[in-house]
Protein backbone atom coordinates (compact mmCIF):
# COMPACT_ATOMS: atom_id res chain seq x y z
CA UNK A 1 0.00 0.00 0.00
CA UNK A 2 1.27 3.44 -0.96
CA UNK A 3 0.48 6.43 1.23
CA UNK A 4 0.08 9.75 -0.56
CA UNK A 5 -0.24 13.21 0.94
CA UNK A 6 -1.92 15.71 -1.37
CA UNK A 7 -1.79 19.48 -1.12
CA UNK A 8 -4.78 21.07 0.55
CA UNK A 9 -6.40 22.30 -2.65
CA UNK A 10 -6.33 18.86 -4.23
CA UNK A 11 -7.69 17.24 -1.08
CA UNK A 12 -10.74 19.48 -1.27
CA UNK A 13 -11.09 18.80 -4.98
CA UNK A 14 -10.91 15.00 -4.56
CA UNK A 15 -12.79 15.15 -1.24
CA UNK A 16 -10.20 13.11 0.61
CA UNK A 17 -8.53 13.45 3.99
CA UNK A 18 -4.93 13.83 5.09
CA UNK A 19 -3.70 10.71 3.28
CA UNK A 20 -4.77 8.72 0.26
CA UNK A 21 -3.96 5.00 0.23
CA UNK A 22 -3.45 3.15 -3.04
CA UNK A 23 -2.35 -0.32 -4.11
CA UNK A 24 -0.11 -0.49 -7.17
CA UNK A 25 0.12 -3.42 -9.57
CA UNK A 26 3.76 -2.91 -10.44
CA UNK A 27 6.75 -1.20 -8.92
CA UNK A 28 6.43 2.09 -7.12
CA UNK A 29 7.30 5.00 -9.37
CA UNK A 30 6.02 8.55 -9.64
CA UNK A 31 4.25 7.64 -12.88
CA UNK A 32 2.61 4.55 -11.36
CA UNK A 33 1.43 6.52 -8.34
CA UNK A 34 -0.11 9.33 -10.40
CA UNK A 35 -1.67 6.87 -12.84
CA UNK A 36 -3.35 5.09 -9.93
CA UNK A 37 -4.30 8.34 -8.26
CA UNK A 38 -5.96 9.69 -11.41
CA UNK A 39 -7.68 6.37 -11.98
CA UNK A 40 -9.32 6.52 -8.57
CA UNK A 41 -9.87 10.28 -8.54
CA UNK A 42 -10.37 11.42 -12.16
CA UNK A 43 -11.03 14.99 -11.07
CA UNK A 44 -7.29 15.18 -10.38
CA UNK A 45 -6.38 14.64 -14.02
CA UNK A 46 -4.60 17.71 -15.34
CA UNK A 47 -3.96 19.16 -11.89
CA UNK A 48 -0.65 17.43 -11.08
CA UNK A 49 0.66 16.85 -14.59
CA UNK A 50 -0.38 18.20 -17.95
CA UNK A 51 -3.16 16.33 -19.73
CA UNK A 52 -1.28 16.00 -22.98
CA UNK A 53 2.43 15.90 -22.19
CA UNK A 54 2.06 14.19 -18.79
CA UNK A 55 4.78 16.53 -17.53
CA UNK A 56 4.61 17.77 -13.95
CA UNK A 57 2.93 21.15 -13.63
CA UNK A 58 5.58 23.81 -12.92
CA UNK A 59 4.41 24.69 -9.40
CA UNK A 60 3.89 21.10 -8.24
CA UNK A 61 6.69 19.24 -6.44
CA UNK A 62 7.21 15.61 -5.43
CA UNK A 63 8.95 14.58 -2.19
CA UNK A 64 10.02 11.12 -1.02
CA UNK A 65 11.72 10.47 2.32
CA UNK A 66 12.56 14.13 2.75
CA UNK A 67 14.09 14.50 -0.71
CA UNK A 68 12.75 16.66 -3.54
CA UNK A 69 12.53 14.18 -6.43
CA UNK A 70 10.58 16.47 -8.75
CA UNK A 71 13.26 16.31 -11.42
CA UNK A 72 13.82 12.55 -11.28
CA UNK A 73 12.54 10.50 -14.24
CA UNK A 74 8.90 9.51 -13.65
CA UNK A 75 9.76 5.83 -14.14
CA UNK A 76 12.59 5.81 -11.56
CA UNK A 77 11.94 3.41 -8.64
CA UNK A 78 10.95 5.11 -5.41
CA UNK A 79 12.61 4.23 -2.08
CA UNK A 80 11.48 1.04 -0.34
CA UNK A 81 10.05 3.07 2.51
CA UNK A 82 7.59 4.63 0.05
CA UNK A 83 6.87 1.33 -1.71
CA UNK A 84 6.12 -0.40 1.62
CA UNK A 85 4.04 2.45 2.96
CA UNK A 86 6.39 3.24 5.83
CA UNK A 87 6.74 6.78 4.54
CA UNK A 88 4.17 8.84 2.61
CA UNK A 89 4.78 10.20 -0.87
CA UNK A 90 4.25 13.95 -0.80
CA UNK A 91 2.74 15.97 -3.64
CA UNK A 92 3.12 19.63 -2.79
CA UNK A 93 2.22 22.99 -4.20
CA UNK A 94 5.29 25.20 -4.44
CA UNK A 95 5.45 27.92 -1.82
CA UNK A 96 5.10 30.77 -4.26
CA UNK A 97 2.83 33.61 -5.14
CA UNK A 98 2.08 35.00 -1.67
Amino acid at each position, binding site marked *: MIRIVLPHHLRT*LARVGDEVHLDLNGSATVKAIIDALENKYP*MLRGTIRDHGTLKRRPLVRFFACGEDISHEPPDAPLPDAIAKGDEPFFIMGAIAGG
Partner: protein
Amino acid sequence: MSGVRLLVGTKKGAFVLTSDAKRKDWKVDGPHFAGWEIYHMKGSPVDPDRIYASQTSAWFGQIIQRSSDGGKTWETPGSSPEDLKGPDGMPKGKSNMFVYDGIPGTHMWYDGTQHPWEFKRVWHLEPALDNADHVYAGVEDAALFESKDGGKSWSELSGLRQHDTGPKWQPGAGGMCLHTILIDPKNPKRIFIAISAAGAFRTDDGGKTWKPINHGLHSQFMPDPNAEVGHCVHRIAMHPSKPNTLFMQKHWDVMRSDDGGDSWREVSGNLPSDFGFPIDVHAHEPETIYVVPIKSDSEHYPPDGKLRVFRSRKGGNEWEELTKGLPQKDCYVNVLRDSMSVDSLDPCGVYFGTTGGQVYGSNDAGDSWNAIVRDLPAVLSVEVQTLK
Protein backbone atom coordinates in the same frame (compact mmCIF):
# COMPACT_ATOMS: atom_id res chain seq x y z
CA MET B 1 -42.22 32.66 -5.21
CA SER B 2 -39.91 34.73 -7.34
CA GLY B 3 -36.49 35.76 -6.18
CA VAL B 4 -32.91 36.16 -7.25
CA ARG B 5 -29.72 34.19 -6.91
CA LEU B 6 -26.35 35.87 -7.22
CA LEU B 7 -23.38 33.76 -8.29
CA VAL B 8 -20.25 35.43 -7.02
CA GLY B 9 -16.80 34.25 -8.06
CA THR B 10 -13.88 35.46 -5.96
CA LYS B 11 -10.14 35.05 -5.62
CA LYS B 12 -10.69 32.50 -2.86
CA GLY B 13 -13.90 30.67 -3.59
CA ALA B 14 -17.48 30.87 -4.79
CA PHE B 15 -20.45 32.34 -2.97
CA VAL B 16 -24.16 32.05 -3.66
CA LEU B 17 -26.34 34.91 -2.40
CA THR B 18 -30.10 34.54 -2.47
CA SER B 19 -33.04 36.80 -1.78
CA ASP B 20 -36.75 37.04 -2.43
CA ALA B 21 -38.14 39.50 -4.97
CA LYS B 22 -37.85 42.41 -2.55
CA ARG B 23 -34.08 41.99 -2.66
CA LYS B 24 -33.54 43.44 0.79
CA ASP B 25 -32.65 40.46 2.93
CA TRP B 26 -29.98 38.10 1.69
CA LYS B 27 -28.70 34.66 2.57
CA VAL B 28 -25.02 33.97 1.94
CA ASP B 29 -23.78 30.45 1.16
CA GLY B 30 -20.12 29.64 0.76
CA PRO B 31 -17.30 29.59 0.28
CA HIS B 32 -17.52 26.75 -2.17
CA PHE B 33 -14.12 25.57 -3.49
CA ALA B 34 -12.39 27.50 -0.71
CA GLY B 35 -8.99 28.80 -1.63
CA TRP B 36 -9.47 28.41 -5.40
CA GLU B 37 -9.97 31.27 -7.82
CA ILE B 38 -13.47 31.19 -9.25
CA TYR B 39 -13.29 33.21 -12.43
CA HIS B 40 -16.92 32.83 -13.41
CA MET B 41 -20.17 31.01 -12.71
CA LYS B 42 -23.28 31.08 -14.82
CA GLY B 43 -26.61 29.26 -14.84
CA SER B 44 -28.41 27.80 -17.82
CA PRO B 45 -31.38 29.81 -19.10
CA VAL B 46 -33.06 26.46 -19.81
CA ASP B 47 -32.54 25.01 -16.34
CA PRO B 48 -31.54 27.64 -13.76
CA ASP B 49 -30.47 24.96 -11.30
CA ARG B 50 -27.78 23.87 -13.77
CA ILE B 51 -24.81 26.09 -13.01
CA TYR B 52 -21.31 25.93 -14.43
CA ALA B 53 -18.24 27.25 -12.63
CA SER B 54 -14.68 27.91 -13.72
CA GLN B 55 -12.31 27.02 -10.86
CA THR B 56 -8.65 27.77 -11.44
CA SER B 57 -5.26 27.85 -9.77
CA ALA B 58 -1.82 28.86 -10.93
CA TRP B 59 -0.56 25.71 -9.21
CA PHE B 60 -3.13 23.10 -10.20
CA GLY B 61 -4.64 24.43 -13.39
CA GLN B 62 -8.22 24.46 -14.59
CA ILE B 63 -11.23 22.70 -13.06
CA ILE B 64 -14.81 22.81 -14.31
CA GLN B 65 -17.53 22.40 -11.70
CA ARG B 66 -21.20 21.81 -12.31
CA SER B 67 -24.20 22.02 -10.05
CA SER B 68 -27.63 20.54 -10.74
CA ASP B 69 -29.34 21.95 -7.67
CA GLY B 70 -28.78 25.67 -7.88
CA GLY B 71 -25.34 25.70 -6.31
CA LYS B 72 -26.01 23.62 -3.21
CA THR B 73 -23.82 20.72 -4.36
CA TRP B 74 -21.20 20.46 -7.09
CA GLU B 75 -19.36 17.86 -9.13
CA THR B 76 -16.62 17.82 -11.74
CA PRO B 77 -18.52 16.66 -14.84
CA GLY B 78 -17.62 13.15 -15.88
CA SER B 79 -16.50 12.01 -12.43
CA SER B 80 -19.55 9.97 -11.55
CA PRO B 81 -19.03 6.16 -11.52
CA GLU B 82 -20.75 5.54 -14.87
CA ASP B 83 -18.45 8.06 -16.52
CA LEU B 84 -15.14 6.81 -15.18
CA LYS B 85 -13.83 4.41 -17.76
CA GLY B 86 -12.81 5.55 -21.18
CA PRO B 87 -12.07 3.26 -24.15
CA ASP B 88 -8.51 2.73 -22.94
CA GLY B 89 -9.64 1.59 -19.50
CA MET B 90 -8.54 4.81 -17.87
CA PRO B 91 -10.77 7.49 -16.47
CA LYS B 92 -12.06 10.03 -18.92
CA GLY B 93 -11.60 12.95 -16.56
CA LYS B 94 -11.75 15.33 -19.48
CA SER B 95 -13.86 18.07 -18.00
CA ASN B 96 -10.77 20.22 -17.54
CA MET B 97 -9.06 19.19 -20.78
CA PHE B 98 -8.90 22.19 -23.07
CA VAL B 99 -6.69 21.28 -26.00
CA TYR B 100 -6.35 23.58 -28.97
CA ASP B 101 -7.36 22.12 -32.30
CA GLY B 102 -4.37 21.18 -34.43
CA ILE B 103 -1.06 22.94 -34.14
CA PRO B 104 -1.76 25.94 -31.90
CA GLY B 105 0.50 28.40 -33.72
CA THR B 106 1.63 31.71 -32.30
CA HIS B 107 0.33 35.13 -31.35
CA MET B 108 2.10 38.38 -30.57
CA TRP B 109 3.85 38.60 -27.21
CA TYR B 110 4.32 41.72 -25.09
CA ASP B 111 7.67 42.47 -26.72
CA GLY B 112 6.36 42.13 -30.26
CA THR B 113 7.78 38.65 -30.86
CA GLN B 114 5.65 35.63 -31.68
CA HIS B 115 4.67 33.36 -28.77
CA PRO B 116 2.96 29.96 -28.79
CA TRP B 117 -0.67 29.68 -27.77
CA GLU B 118 -0.80 28.16 -24.26
CA PHE B 119 -3.99 27.31 -22.42
CA LYS B 120 -4.12 28.91 -18.97
CA ARG B 121 -7.69 29.17 -17.69
CA VAL B 122 -11.36 29.63 -18.47
CA TRP B 123 -12.46 33.24 -18.02
CA HIS B 124 -16.12 32.98 -18.96
CA LEU B 125 -18.75 30.26 -19.27
CA GLU B 126 -21.82 30.93 -21.38
CA PRO B 127 -24.56 28.29 -21.32
CA ALA B 128 -26.48 27.94 -24.59
CA LEU B 129 -29.97 29.37 -24.83
CA ASP B 130 -31.72 26.11 -25.71
CA ASN B 131 -29.87 23.19 -24.09
CA ALA B 132 -28.56 22.98 -20.53
CA ASP B 133 -25.83 20.53 -21.59
CA HIS B 134 -24.47 22.92 -24.22
CA VAL B 135 -22.08 25.53 -22.89
CA TYR B 136 -19.37 27.76 -24.34
CA ALA B 137 -16.09 28.61 -22.63
CA GLY B 138 -13.92 31.63 -23.34
CA VAL B 139 -10.33 30.89 -22.41
CA GLU B 140 -6.85 32.35 -22.03
CA ASP B 141 -4.86 32.20 -24.35
CA ALA B 142 -7.77 33.40 -26.37
CA ALA B 143 -9.98 30.73 -27.89
CA LEU B 144 -13.57 29.58 -27.79
CA PHE B 145 -14.47 26.06 -26.69
CA GLU B 146 -17.82 24.33 -26.39
CA SER B 147 -19.18 21.32 -24.58
CA LYS B 148 -22.33 19.53 -25.64
CA ASP B 149 -22.29 16.96 -22.84
CA GLY B 150 -22.70 19.13 -19.80
CA GLY B 151 -19.04 19.98 -19.44
CA LYS B 152 -17.68 16.42 -19.53
CA SER B 153 -15.58 17.16 -22.59
CA TRP B 154 -14.66 20.21 -24.64
CA SER B 155 -13.77 20.94 -28.23
CA GLU B 156 -12.47 24.12 -29.75
CA LEU B 157 -14.35 26.25 -32.27
CA SER B 158 -11.01 26.81 -33.88
CA GLY B 159 -12.12 29.04 -36.74
CA LEU B 160 -11.77 31.94 -34.35
CA ARG B 161 -8.22 31.32 -33.16
CA GLN B 162 -7.16 30.37 -36.68
CA HIS B 163 -8.43 33.64 -38.11
CA ASP B 164 -5.86 35.29 -40.36
CA THR B 165 -5.32 38.03 -37.79
CA GLY B 166 -4.42 35.57 -34.95
CA PRO B 167 -0.67 36.25 -35.11
CA LYS B 168 -1.45 39.95 -34.43
CA TRP B 169 -3.43 39.31 -31.25
CA GLN B 170 -1.59 40.17 -28.05
CA PRO B 171 -2.22 39.86 -24.32
CA GLY B 172 -3.50 42.73 -22.26
CA ALA B 173 -2.25 43.27 -18.73
CA GLY B 174 -4.49 40.47 -17.49
CA GLY B 175 -3.48 38.00 -20.17
CA MET B 176 -4.85 37.24 -23.61
CA CYS B 177 -8.33 36.30 -22.53
CA LEU B 178 -11.59 35.68 -24.31
CA HIS B 179 -13.90 37.18 -21.72
CA THR B 180 -17.19 38.00 -23.42
CA ILE B 181 -19.59 35.63 -25.18
CA LEU B 182 -22.96 36.99 -26.32
CA ILE B 183 -25.43 34.74 -28.13
CA ASP B 184 -28.03 36.43 -30.32
CA PRO B 185 -31.35 35.18 -28.92
CA LYS B 186 -33.01 35.67 -32.32
CA ASN B 187 -30.32 33.68 -34.12
CA PRO B 188 -28.19 31.41 -31.89
CA LYS B 189 -25.74 30.86 -34.74
CA ARG B 190 -24.79 34.49 -34.37
CA ILE B 191 -22.32 34.91 -31.53
CA PHE B 192 -20.28 37.93 -30.47
CA ILE B 193 -17.06 37.49 -28.52
CA ALA B 194 -14.40 39.86 -27.24
CA ILE B 195 -10.73 39.35 -26.54
CA SER B 196 -8.25 41.48 -24.66
CA ALA B 197 -6.31 42.62 -26.61
CA ALA B 198 -7.51 41.58 -30.02
CA GLY B 199 -10.96 43.14 -30.14
CA ALA B 200 -14.47 41.99 -30.94
CA PHE B 201 -15.44 39.25 -33.39
CA ARG B 202 -18.71 37.91 -34.74
CA THR B 203 -19.74 34.60 -36.23
CA ASP B 204 -22.93 34.18 -38.23
CA ASP B 205 -22.55 30.43 -38.77
CA GLY B 206 -22.33 29.01 -35.26
CA GLY B 207 -18.62 29.47 -34.83
CA LYS B 208 -17.15 28.13 -38.06
CA THR B 209 -16.03 31.47 -39.42
CA TRP B 210 -15.42 34.77 -37.70
CA LYS B 211 -15.20 38.40 -38.66
CA PRO B 212 -13.37 41.12 -36.71
CA ILE B 213 -15.89 43.83 -35.84
CA ASN B 214 -13.71 46.70 -34.71
CA HIS B 215 -14.38 49.41 -37.27
CA GLY B 216 -14.67 52.70 -35.45
CA LEU B 217 -12.56 51.70 -32.46
CA HIS B 218 -9.62 53.99 -31.86
CA SER B 219 -6.83 52.88 -29.52
CA GLN B 220 -4.11 55.46 -29.15
CA PHE B 221 -1.63 52.98 -27.64
CA MET B 222 -1.47 50.97 -30.87
CA PRO B 223 0.95 51.71 -33.71
CA ASP B 224 -2.08 52.00 -35.96
CA PRO B 225 -4.85 53.28 -33.65
CA ASN B 226 -7.53 52.20 -36.12
CA ALA B 227 -6.16 48.73 -36.89
CA GLU B 228 -8.47 45.84 -37.68
CA VAL B 229 -7.40 43.98 -34.50
CA GLY B 230 -5.37 44.67 -31.37
CA HIS B 231 -7.95 46.72 -29.47
CA CYS B 232 -8.31 46.10 -25.76
CA VAL B 233 -12.04 45.52 -25.48
CA HIS B 234 -13.02 45.11 -21.84
CA ARG B 235 -16.66 44.13 -22.15
CA ILE B 236 -19.62 44.07 -24.52
CA ALA B 237 -23.30 44.03 -23.52
CA MET B 238 -26.50 43.50 -25.45
CA HIS B 239 -30.21 43.72 -24.71
CA PRO B 240 -31.94 40.53 -25.87
CA SER B 241 -34.69 42.47 -27.65
CA LYS B 242 -32.16 44.45 -29.74
CA PRO B 243 -29.30 42.10 -30.61
CA ASN B 244 -28.04 44.40 -33.33
CA THR B 245 -27.26 47.08 -30.76
CA LEU B 246 -24.09 46.44 -28.78
CA PHE B 247 -22.52 48.49 -26.03
CA MET B 248 -18.80 48.28 -25.32
CA GLN B 249 -16.52 49.35 -22.51
CA LYS B 250 -13.13 49.54 -24.14
CA HIS B 251 -9.82 50.06 -22.35
CA TRP B 252 -10.57 53.71 -22.96
CA ASP B 253 -13.90 54.81 -24.48
CA VAL B 254 -17.47 53.64 -24.14
CA MET B 255 -18.80 52.68 -27.57
CA ARG B 256 -22.01 51.56 -29.23
CA SER B 257 -22.91 49.82 -32.44
CA ASP B 258 -26.31 49.62 -34.08
CA ASP B 259 -25.34 47.26 -36.88
CA GLY B 260 -24.19 44.14 -35.06
CA GLY B 261 -20.69 45.45 -34.55
CA ASP B 262 -19.97 46.39 -38.16
CA SER B 263 -19.32 49.94 -37.01
CA TRP B 264 -18.89 51.64 -33.66
CA ARG B 265 -19.21 55.20 -32.37
CA GLU B 266 -18.11 56.66 -29.09
CA VAL B 267 -20.77 57.46 -26.47
CA SER B 268 -18.54 58.34 -23.52
CA GLY B 269 -20.13 61.78 -23.32
CA ASN B 270 -19.88 63.38 -19.87
CA LEU B 271 -18.37 60.43 -17.99
CA PRO B 272 -15.65 61.51 -15.51
CA SER B 273 -13.42 58.81 -17.03
CA ASP B 274 -14.13 56.62 -20.01
CA PHE B 275 -11.83 53.90 -18.69
CA GLY B 276 -13.52 50.99 -16.94
CA PHE B 277 -14.34 47.33 -17.17
CA PRO B 278 -18.01 46.26 -16.93
CA ILE B 279 -20.96 47.52 -18.92
CA ASP B 280 -24.52 46.24 -18.75
CA VAL B 281 -28.02 46.97 -20.04
CA HIS B 282 -31.24 47.43 -18.06
CA ALA B 283 -33.45 44.36 -18.34
CA HIS B 284 -36.53 46.27 -19.58
CA GLU B 285 -35.08 49.41 -21.16
CA PRO B 286 -32.75 48.60 -24.06
CA GLU B 287 -31.35 52.14 -24.13
CA THR B 288 -30.53 52.27 -20.40
CA ILE B 289 -26.96 51.25 -19.74
CA TYR B 290 -24.58 51.18 -16.78
CA VAL B 291 -20.83 51.60 -16.40
CA VAL B 292 -18.43 52.10 -13.49
CA PRO B 293 -15.78 54.67 -14.44
CA ILE B 294 -12.26 53.92 -13.26
CA LYS B 295 -9.61 56.63 -13.11
CA SER B 296 -7.06 55.15 -15.50
CA ASP B 297 -5.28 52.03 -16.64
CA SER B 298 -2.43 52.64 -14.23
CA GLU B 299 -4.72 53.55 -11.31
CA HIS B 300 -7.37 50.89 -11.15
CA TYR B 301 -9.69 52.74 -8.77
CA PRO B 302 -12.58 55.20 -9.07
CA PRO B 303 -11.92 58.89 -9.77
CA ASP B 304 -11.69 61.02 -6.61
CA GLY B 305 -12.09 57.98 -4.35
CA LYS B 306 -15.84 57.98 -5.08
CA LEU B 307 -17.47 54.75 -6.15
CA ARG B 308 -20.08 55.78 -8.71
CA VAL B 309 -22.16 53.87 -11.18
CA PHE B 310 -23.10 55.94 -14.20
CA ARG B 311 -26.39 55.35 -15.99
CA SER B 312 -27.44 56.58 -19.37
CA ARG B 313 -31.09 56.35 -20.29
CA LYS B 314 -30.34 57.42 -23.85
CA GLY B 315 -27.97 54.68 -24.91
CA GLY B 316 -24.89 56.72 -24.05
CA ASN B 317 -23.47 60.23 -24.29
CA GLU B 318 -25.66 61.62 -21.49
CA TRP B 319 -24.81 60.04 -18.16
CA GLU B 320 -26.09 60.53 -14.62
CA GLU B 321 -24.09 59.51 -11.58
CA LEU B 322 -25.65 57.07 -9.14
CA THR B 323 -24.19 57.43 -5.67
CA LYS B 324 -26.87 56.78 -3.08
CA GLY B 325 -25.58 54.05 -0.79
CA LEU B 326 -22.13 53.86 -2.41
CA PRO B 327 -18.97 55.12 -0.65
CA GLN B 328 -18.22 58.69 -1.71
CA LYS B 329 -14.82 59.10 -0.12
CA ASP B 330 -11.66 57.04 0.38
CA CYS B 331 -12.80 54.27 -1.93
CA TYR B 332 -10.05 52.69 -4.02
CA VAL B 333 -11.48 49.40 -5.24
CA ASN B 334 -11.83 48.18 -8.80
CA VAL B 335 -14.81 46.56 -10.50
CA LEU B 336 -13.75 43.84 -12.93
CA ARG B 337 -15.26 43.15 -16.33
CA ASP B 338 -17.47 40.20 -15.41
CA SER B 339 -18.59 41.67 -12.10
CA MET B 340 -21.84 43.40 -13.08
CA SER B 341 -25.21 41.85 -13.76
CA VAL B 342 -28.89 42.79 -13.96
CA ASP B 343 -31.97 40.81 -12.93
CA SER B 344 -35.27 40.87 -14.81
CA LEU B 345 -37.60 41.71 -11.95
CA ASP B 346 -39.49 44.98 -11.92
CA PRO B 347 -37.90 47.31 -10.99
CA CYS B 348 -34.74 45.97 -12.54
CA GLY B 349 -32.06 44.92 -10.08
CA VAL B 350 -28.44 45.86 -10.73
CA TYR B 351 -25.48 44.22 -8.98
CA PHE B 352 -21.73 44.57 -9.00
CA GLY B 353 -18.78 43.27 -7.02
CA THR B 354 -15.49 44.93 -6.16
CA THR B 355 -11.91 43.89 -5.67
CA GLY B 356 -12.42 44.98 -2.05
CA GLY B 357 -14.88 42.13 -1.52
CA GLN B 358 -18.11 44.11 -1.52
CA VAL B 359 -21.13 43.10 -3.54
CA TYR B 360 -23.51 46.01 -4.04
CA GLY B 361 -27.09 45.63 -5.14
CA SER B 362 -29.81 48.00 -6.26
CA ASN B 363 -33.46 46.96 -6.32
CA ASP B 364 -34.52 50.18 -8.05
CA ALA B 365 -32.54 50.18 -11.28
CA GLY B 366 -29.58 51.94 -9.72
CA ASP B 367 -31.28 54.81 -7.90
CA SER B 368 -30.02 53.47 -4.57
CA TRP B 369 -27.56 50.81 -3.48
CA ASN B 370 -26.85 48.57 -0.53
CA ALA B 371 -23.87 46.39 0.28
CA ILE B 372 -25.20 42.83 0.27
CA VAL B 373 -21.86 41.64 1.65
CA ARG B 374 -18.80 43.70 2.50
CA ASP B 375 -15.95 41.37 3.26
CA LEU B 376 -15.65 38.65 0.65
CA PRO B 377 -12.34 37.95 -1.09
CA ALA B 378 -11.72 40.10 -4.16
CA VAL B 379 -14.70 39.64 -6.48
CA LEU B 380 -13.90 38.36 -9.97
CA SER B 381 -17.42 37.89 -11.32
CA VAL B 382 -21.09 38.42 -10.51
CA GLU B 383 -23.99 36.81 -12.33
CA VAL B 384 -27.59 37.07 -11.23
CA GLN B 385 -30.36 34.59 -11.92
CA THR B 386 -33.98 35.68 -11.74
CA LEU B 387 -35.93 32.78 -10.26
CA LYS B 388 -39.61 32.38 -11.06
